[in-house]
């Protein structure tokens, strides 16, 4: 069975600082995608960043980057230069085949 674990229910970061959100997963599949989605208070989940499992290079999208450790089945999200607008729930997602499952989420607070 596929599982996604986010061990940090809440995290807090000072504006302009860097924060790392953790995610681990378990799967027997060899071909899959990993995602981080953001859910702001407006409710809709939006994609932050995506990583293909076959790519060794860590994905980067502006201030967002991942540390993908395939052997360890770890997929952490680093947010640099945190902004007030980054405050949200962040869900780590795993897509194997055509089903995506999510971790329990990490609520990120950004302090001014």
């Amino acid at each position: 069975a596929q599982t996604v674990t986010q061990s940090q229910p809440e995290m807090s970061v000072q504006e302009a600082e860097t924060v790392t959100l953790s995610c681990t997963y378990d799967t027997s599949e060899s071909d899959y995608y990993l995602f981080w989605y953001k859910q702001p208070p407006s409710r809709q989940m939006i994609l932050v960043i995506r990583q293909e499992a076959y790519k060794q290079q860590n994905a980067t999208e502006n201030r967002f980057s991942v540390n993908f450790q395939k052997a360890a089945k770890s997929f952490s999200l680093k947010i640099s230069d945190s902004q007030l607008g980054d405050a949200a729930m962040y869900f780590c997602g795993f897509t194997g085949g055509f089903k995506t499952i999510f971790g329990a989420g990490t609520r990120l607070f950004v302090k001014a």
Partner: protein
Amino acid sequence: EPEVTQTPSHQVTQMGQEVILRCVPISNHLYFYWYRQILGQKVEFLVSFYNNEISEKSEIFDDQFSVERPDGSNFTLKIRSTKLEDSAMYFCASILAGGTNTGELFFGEGSRLTVL
């Protein structure tokens, strides 16, 4: 930009009543999903739908739930006899399958169901 749309945004119903939640996925997407999020909790997979049939469902998706694509655009989730614990936000999502598939889910804004 194409988007997934859901109606209603909020529905209040009495326990035991039937509810239909509607979704219009992005037009060229081929896989459709329903997810559920009980307030403040994780987003849980309910069901996936492809080629006019269920491709996978979770243990949450029991006999009181059903999905269908009645025409070429709508994708519905029906709850036959609602229970208090069905109160949640229900998200529809779609994915482009095929050569350019990136695995990214596109979510609607959700339908909040409140069962009294």
